[in-house]
């Protein structure tokens, strides 16, 4: 690394791992939720990029920002970022990302569901909160929503607290926070999944596959591919 790169690159710590888990969905399909590795980001970007064109349900803004966040992670421009992915038979069905503002405070970035109607986004968001509180051991997570679906779901289902004094890095609206107390209160009804994941199931989730663009767009818009 040259000196200039050292200046541009934020210091980074090795974040504690998120042990993979498996969630049986309404369809009976098994979704493995695991950490994405930095070297998998180019694959994730392939899935996120087409969604930037989807105006419906704020996919465009969420995808554009997630693309930038993931790229920032890949190129060492965002500090202490992570990404969790949802995989059914190795196929990417959703992702969530965030980062650590400090050891005690987490920042929730975005949630993208790439298949709809199975609560994949809700499961992944819950996994993200689980990571911050239980595995990163943080005191609270700052959250804002860009879409009405997100607002209604996260703020009301988790009963988030207002943090009017906090400037969330995603924008200027008032931030909300998930505290440890709120998390553990909500956990029995919102955080599910089994660990450890059976070897054969984990094996299916070893590499990330992305469906064809037309199929992906069909899945998020409801229009046949």
């Amino acid at each position, binding site marked *: 690394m040259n000196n200039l790169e050292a200046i541009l690159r934020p210091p980074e710590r090795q974040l504690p791992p998120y042990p993979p888990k498996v969630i049986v969905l309404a369809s009976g399909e098994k979704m493995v939720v695991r950490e994405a590795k930095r070297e998998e980001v180019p694959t994730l970007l392939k899935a996120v990029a087409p969604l930037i064109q989807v105006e419906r349900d704020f996919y465009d803004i969420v995808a554009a920002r997630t693309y930038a966040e993931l790229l920032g992670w890949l190129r060492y421009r965002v500090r202490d970022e992570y990404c969790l992915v949802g995989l059914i038979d190795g196929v990417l069905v959703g992702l969530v990302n965030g980062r650590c503002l400090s050891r005690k405070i987490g920042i929730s970035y975005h949630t993208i569901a790439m298949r709809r109607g199975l609560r994949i986004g*809700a499961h992944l968001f819950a996994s993200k909160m689980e990571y911050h509180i239980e595995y990163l051991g943080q005191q609270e997570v700052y959250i804002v929503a860009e879409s009405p679906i997100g607002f209604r779901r996260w703020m009301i289902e988790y009963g988030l607290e207002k943090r009017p004094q906090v400037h969330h890095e995603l924008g200027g609206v008032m931030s909300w926070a998930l505290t440890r107390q709120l998390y553990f209160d909500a956990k029995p009804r919102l955080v599910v999944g089994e660990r450890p994941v059976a070897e054969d199931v984990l094996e299916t989730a070893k590499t990330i596959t992305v469906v064809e663009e037309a199929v992906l767009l069909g899945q998020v818009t409801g229009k046949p591919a």
Partner: protein
Amino acid sequence: MRDVFIVGCAMTRFGRMEGGLLDLLEEAATGAMNDADIDEPVEGVFVANMGAGILNHLSGVGSALVDRLSLYPAAAETIENGPASGGSAVKVAYYAIASGLVDLALVVGGEKMRDVTGWEATDFVATLTHPQAEYIYGATLPAFAAMFARLYMEKYGVKHEHLAMVAIKNHENALLNPYAHVQQRITMEGILHRPEAIMNNPPVAEPLRLYDCCPVSDGAAAVVLASERIASKAKKPCVRIAGIGQATDTHAVHERKDPTELKAVRLASQKAFNMAGVKPEDVDVAELHDAFTILEIAESEEAGFFEKGKGHVALEKGETSLHGRMPINPSGGLKARGHPVGATGVAQVVELTWQLRHEAGPRQVDGAQIGFSCNFGGFGNNVLCFVLAGEK
């Protein structure tokens, strides 16, 4: 009274659709008129819609559709009867033809609900509850279905598994219906038995959960009705509207004497069967208003297909499955075909027409001759039932 025949039908795909309400109505209407392929002027246009005023900031939908289709000077009206608007429009068109005033009529039902958020849609549907005694409390349609279900399940030993069986069956049927909104197989394990079910299938209004409720859909459906003079020239097999029944009940649900009864369904069914001169056991296929899973079970009993309190037993035995003794909701029902409120009553008639013309493809009920539909408005305060007979 003259006989009335269905000479053409069509529907749009249900789901979350692009375009406006009029685009959906236009697509269904054109499809039905092409299906009928009759070279005579349409004299009456009856458009079923519940919420264009609230949801789409639109009124005069019937007149607007006539203009889109250049059907002037046909008589036209928009018919609003809550989620039973579709049934009402078919009935009013029936009156027009049976009376001799009109020979050829177009009935189109449609709704564009996904222009608003889910909670705005919930609020919109809740506007049909009693304004002072129900609406202000935040009572929703799922809430009434839930309070009904709690008592019904307790009284008749209906378990949550039975409700889930309705959902699973109708989701399976919808996989065979290219027009259905929900194209997703669901499993008992995933929605009920696994620990994940708490999240996969969260409560909407206890004891009802997500998969006990129909989705919020856009869509339109249309039928062309004709007198015998015109029907005799039709190229496709005609379906006769053999019976119509309608009944109302109290606006405030708490005022009904027996809270485990859907009296208007029973009365409307009886009227329809009496008019048609057939019995429930003569019916080959039924489309019931399963906006909530419990309703399919309860309506199947009130309509007379099963003894009161035994609908869930028949369901459990597979009698209501596609190839069972009494197939219910081969289309997927409201549960999975979807429920664009103004379209539903017409869509039920469209599905039965396809079934009775033996054109339903992989979801065809073998040899279907008599069909029955139940279109349930409000929480059962205005119900329409139809008996249809396949014939030339």
